[in-house]
């Protein structure tokens, strides 16, 4: 393979928003882990759909409808290839990964979960991968178990293994932590669950934008991600599941588009994936997601990973050179997410000062309050790096942090 190459200046030109200013300064966008910016190609694809080929999908008999349907279904094929699914019927379009997780909770786990059973998650999960399980457990009289992490932010594999019990009905883990950046050793963790025939779901919201993913090679049962973090539009996400599982699962929502036949006596459901896509879907969103995947494929996910890794190393060193700064998350295998605290300055105040300098970061609990508690803080500041970020962006972040310290020093 050739040396990683990503022409960042050309990438930056693909993102119209990057030529805009924030508070009168050129924008430094360091919040892509929250939501990524959109390349022109995604906007154009959606625009083209609406201006040239729009109709409802799976319904009309005319050319426009055929065009829209084939493009919509074409994205399903594309997603399947993108994450290494065996069959496009395993790709279910949802609103976001949150809905994907809820779908699995509702249609797969609920009927298998009884009193005294367990669901195992980790201490670094996003609320989206905590709350649905918590609710199910409460309803079933089951227990939510939490695999602990060490101070570097890595899952303690031995502890994880000990928590896998004959009562575990599901394991649900983040591929990559949105706060710590930890890339979990999911291959190993999945294998441990599978040895015991425990189904396992991976929340890939922060995985897919940064790493090559092959669900068959990973060996998990469900894998979800969200389009807007992958340079796609909001309102579209994917939950992948093994076909036999999807086949056996009851629908999540019901109505039009998900049926085979409806009579007042009895309705039969369409096979997956349509069984899980009730109602008119987010057609433009799916088209946009397809363009986003093309965009990512065009750059090459390995090139993306390499670019971000180089930037992460640069940024880590730069931040560590600031006295009074502490980085949370020092996993050996880490994605380009840097959460940190400054001595004596609350993360919100950091966020406000940086905003004034044109630097957009996230400050708060990052929808991971139990993780905040694990590290004994109520909030953290987080800079996340993406394909359009440069060393220059990192330098501006560092300068703005020095200003913050000056102000509050």
């Amino acid at each position: 393979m050739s040396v990683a190459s990503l022409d960042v200046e050309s990438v930056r030109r693909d993102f119209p928003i990057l030529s805009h200013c924030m508070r009168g300064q050129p924008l430094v966008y360091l919040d892509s882990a929250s939501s990524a910016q959109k390349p022109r190609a995604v906007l154009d694809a959606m625009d083209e759909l609406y201006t040239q080929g729009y109709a409802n999908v799976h319904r009309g008999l005319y050319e426009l409808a055929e065009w829209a349907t084939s493009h919509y279904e074409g994205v399903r094929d594309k997603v399947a290839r993108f994450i290494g699914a065996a069959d496009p019927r395993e790709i279910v379009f949802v609103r976001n990964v949150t809905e994907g997780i809820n779908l699995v909770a509702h249609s797969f786990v609920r009927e298998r979960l009884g009193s005294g059973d367990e669901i195992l998650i980790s201490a670094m999960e996003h609320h989206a991968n905590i709350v649905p399980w918590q609710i199910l457990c409460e309803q079933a009289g089951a227990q939510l178990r939490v695999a602990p992490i060490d101070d570097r932010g890595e899952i303690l594999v031995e502890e994880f293994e000990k928590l896998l019990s004959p009562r575990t009905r599901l394991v649900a883990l983040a591929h990559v932590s949105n706060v710590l950046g930890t890339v979990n050793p999911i291959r190993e963790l999945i294998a441990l669950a599978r040895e015991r025939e425990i189904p396992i779901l991976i929340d890939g919201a922060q995985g897919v934008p940064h790493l090559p993913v092959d669900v068959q090679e990973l060996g998990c049962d469900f894998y979800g991600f969200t389009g807007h973090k992958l340079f796609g539009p909001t309102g579209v996400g994917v939950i992948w599941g093994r076909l036999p599982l999807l086949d056996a699962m009851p629908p999540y929502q019901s109505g039009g588009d998900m049926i085979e036949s409806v009579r007042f006596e009895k309705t039969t459901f369409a096979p997956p994936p349509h069984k899980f896509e009730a109602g008119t879907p987010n057609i433009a969103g799916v088209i946009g997601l397809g363009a986003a995947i093309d965009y990512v494929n065009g750059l090459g996910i390995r090139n993306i990973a390499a670019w971000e890794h180089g930037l992460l190393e640069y940024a880590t060193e730069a931040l560590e050179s600031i006295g009074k700064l502490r980085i949370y998350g020092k996993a050996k295998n880490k994605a380009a997410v840097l959460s940190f605290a400054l001595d004596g300055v609350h993360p919100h105040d950091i966020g406000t000062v940086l905003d004034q300098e044109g630097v957009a970061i996230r400050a708060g609990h990052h929808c991971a309050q139990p993780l905040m508690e694990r590290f004994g803080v109520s909030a953290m500041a987080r800079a996340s790096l993406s394909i359009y970020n440069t060393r220059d962006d990192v330098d501006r972040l560092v300068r703005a942090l020095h200003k913050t310290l000056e102000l509050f020093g």
Partner: protein
Amino acid sequence: MDDLRELYQTTILDHNKSPRNFRELEDANRRAEGYNPLCGDKLTVTLLVDADDRVEDVGFVGSGCAISTASASIMTEFAKGKSRAEIEETFERFHELLTGSPSEPAEAPELGKLAVFAGVREYPLRVKCATLAWHALKAALENREEMTLVKTE
């Protein structure tokens, strides 16, 4: 930096560094917890009020940003010796100051030291930080229950 100085006035920075009345009153007869679900910040206000709802003593504890800490600190200084009606009236004025249009001059001589928060009006996301302690104080005054969870607007 000038815009930031507008927001983070010296008085605010000072109260953030050394918050006044930063304690839980042992003899409190009212208390309320203010919680901002958006950011997870929490603070607890404890009060000693007399039979006429006049604040004899007040303290706060908790962790928050500079705006919420300084606002709580300055609020406790203000509230001591005030009646419930005076406090509610001032909170209303204070709230108006924070949410007023940035283009209008922020003059509020009647608010005294509280006027240092005028810069917050430029940052709508931070209004909740400045009012968190006040919401808790108001809840404590209104409620005889031991604990009141206040969500800010």
